[in-house]
């Protein structure tokens, strides 16, 4: 065997040897040239001093503890700073020969391409997360009016009933239907009809308390869920709604609403659909007895 004098600059990476405090004892030319410094400028400095502030945190809090604890760290990307204060992403492999060794050997591979790839990957991930949260929002919302859709309302009704049982409050279900709405569509077109629906939904949402639920049930039918409310509170709310109808701007002469209410005590045993049916029956009463009014159906306590 002949002795081989190995030239560390033949390696396709930067090489550093440090003590356990990460003071640099040796650097190959390549490492120095990556960051536009000379070997002399690097020696005796701490690896820290070649890094961006953020990388110092990872270095001191993750890399170094890992090497001291496990003896090795592989494939960690951090940012070096070159002499022009420009960031150079590098992937680090470091190794301490054994737990008594006073030196750490660091191999540093420039990672410009890998960094681009990771940037693209993280960007896509972020976009995907944003799209997901948008879809989640869309799946709850009625696209025309912006209030909740029927499915979300049914979910919220379950939640309200659970809260009602736990905190022992009664709750109200309002079923609302615009009077002679078909005539608006027939006489003034669907654009005008949609315009009225939007204004009506907005009016309900503006009047709602923080945890009330306003939803479009279908066509010109809406449901409002009112947690923690009694007959008195409900009647005040519906009076306001009847009154606010005057604010709706339409080509039709005027537009009114009929409302059916079901008020249920917290321990009510009826199913969700049965409760909605009760509100629907009360709405039917309002329609039958002349419209533009509220009929209240209280389930006895």
């Amino acid at each position, binding site marked *: 065997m002949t002795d081989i004098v190995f030239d560390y600059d033949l390696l396709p990476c930067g090489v550093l040897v440090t003590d356990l*405090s990460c003071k640099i004892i040796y650097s190959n030319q390549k490492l120095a040239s990556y960051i536009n410094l000379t070997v002399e400028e690097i020696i005796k400095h701490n690896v820290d001093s070649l890094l961006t*502030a*953020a*990388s110092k945190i*990872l*270095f*001191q*809090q*993750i890399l*170094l503890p890992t090497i001291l604890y496990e003896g090795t760290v592989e494939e960690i990307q951090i940012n070096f700073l070159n002499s022009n204060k420009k960031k150079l992403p590098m992937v680090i492999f470091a190794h301490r020969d054994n737990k008594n060794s006073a030196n750490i050997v660091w191999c540093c591979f420039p990672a410009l391409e890998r960094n681009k790839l990771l940037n693209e990957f993280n960007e896509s991930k972020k976009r995907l997360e944003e799209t997901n949260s948008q879809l989640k929002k869309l799946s709850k919302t009625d696209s025309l009016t912006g209030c909740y859709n029927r499915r979300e309302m049914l979910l919220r009704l379950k939640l309200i009933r659970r809260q009602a049982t736990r905190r022992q409050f009664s709750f109200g279900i309002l079923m609302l239907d615009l009077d002679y709405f078909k005539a608006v569509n027939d006489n003034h077109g669907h654009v005008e009809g949609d315009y009225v629906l939007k204004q009506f939904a907005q009016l309900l949402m503006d009047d709602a308390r923080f945890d009330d639920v306003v939803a479009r049930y279908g066509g010109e039918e809406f449901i409002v869920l009112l947690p923690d409310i009694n007959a008195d509170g409900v009647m005040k709310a519906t009076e306001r709604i009847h009154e606010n109808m005057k604010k709706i701007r339409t080509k039709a002469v005027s537009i009114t609403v009929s409302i059916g209410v079901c008020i249920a005590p917290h321990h009510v045993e009826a199913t969700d659909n049965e409760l909605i049916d009760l509100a629907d029956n009360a709405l039917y009463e309002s329609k039958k007895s002349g419209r533009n009014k509220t009929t209240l159906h209280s389930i006895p306590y």
Partner: protein
Amino acid sequence: MANITKRNNVVVQGKGDQPILFAHGFGCDQNMWRFMAPDFLENYKVVLFDYMGSGKSDITEYDPKKYESLEGYAEDILDICEDLKLKNTIVVGHSVSASIATLASLKEPCYFSSLIHITPSPCFLNDPPDYMGGFEYSDLEELLDLMDKNYIGWAEYLSPIVIGGQASELLKGELSDSFCSTDPLIAKNFAKATFLSDHRESFSKSTTPSLIIQSKIDALASLEVGEFLHKTTPHSTLTIIDSEGHCPHMTHPTITSKAVKQYLLND
């Protein structure tokens, strides 16, 4: 209350009665005390633990909202003190754990006798002209970006590597694998709580005697930060030890232990 020992992977060792609780910093777990904690086994009741979301803590009990701020982590310390019925406890906290221990001591002073802060920083962000924590907000953004780019290394580091100091290579692999499923968002949450918070005021209200141990050179907590903290923290002592770096309890465990013991003897 939930099983705290399991939740926070609490380990109690040592022959003494005086409790000394070691609180790890960001990015690590209780294993980081392996070089220093043995120095206290003879005369103390040594308590080690992992914060929620770190090491071998029970991830299923992690509440992202609670651990958005250091107050949430302080609750972990208080829960452990209550669970183990600790009184007059000495807390040794590394880096951000100095702030966490201080918050805990402000809430329940009776649990604690003294706080040992190793390379503490009450606020990593610069607040010119009077305070320079060393970091800008953009540095934190870069840190979060780097954490996104080092998912695997991160998850593996957090994994519990050694049980009783002699785990086989096989066991290492198993534990690492099982931990990789952990949400890295937890680590980012801890990073934000650590590097965006400002607890200068909390330290200034402290009533528990404390020792501040600083490294001569530390890229994360400068001597100026140490001096600021000493000046503004009532009943504090400052000791600058002959070490370089942010983790003297790992790089220079002997002199760090010596500084702690000396303070406790004189206390």
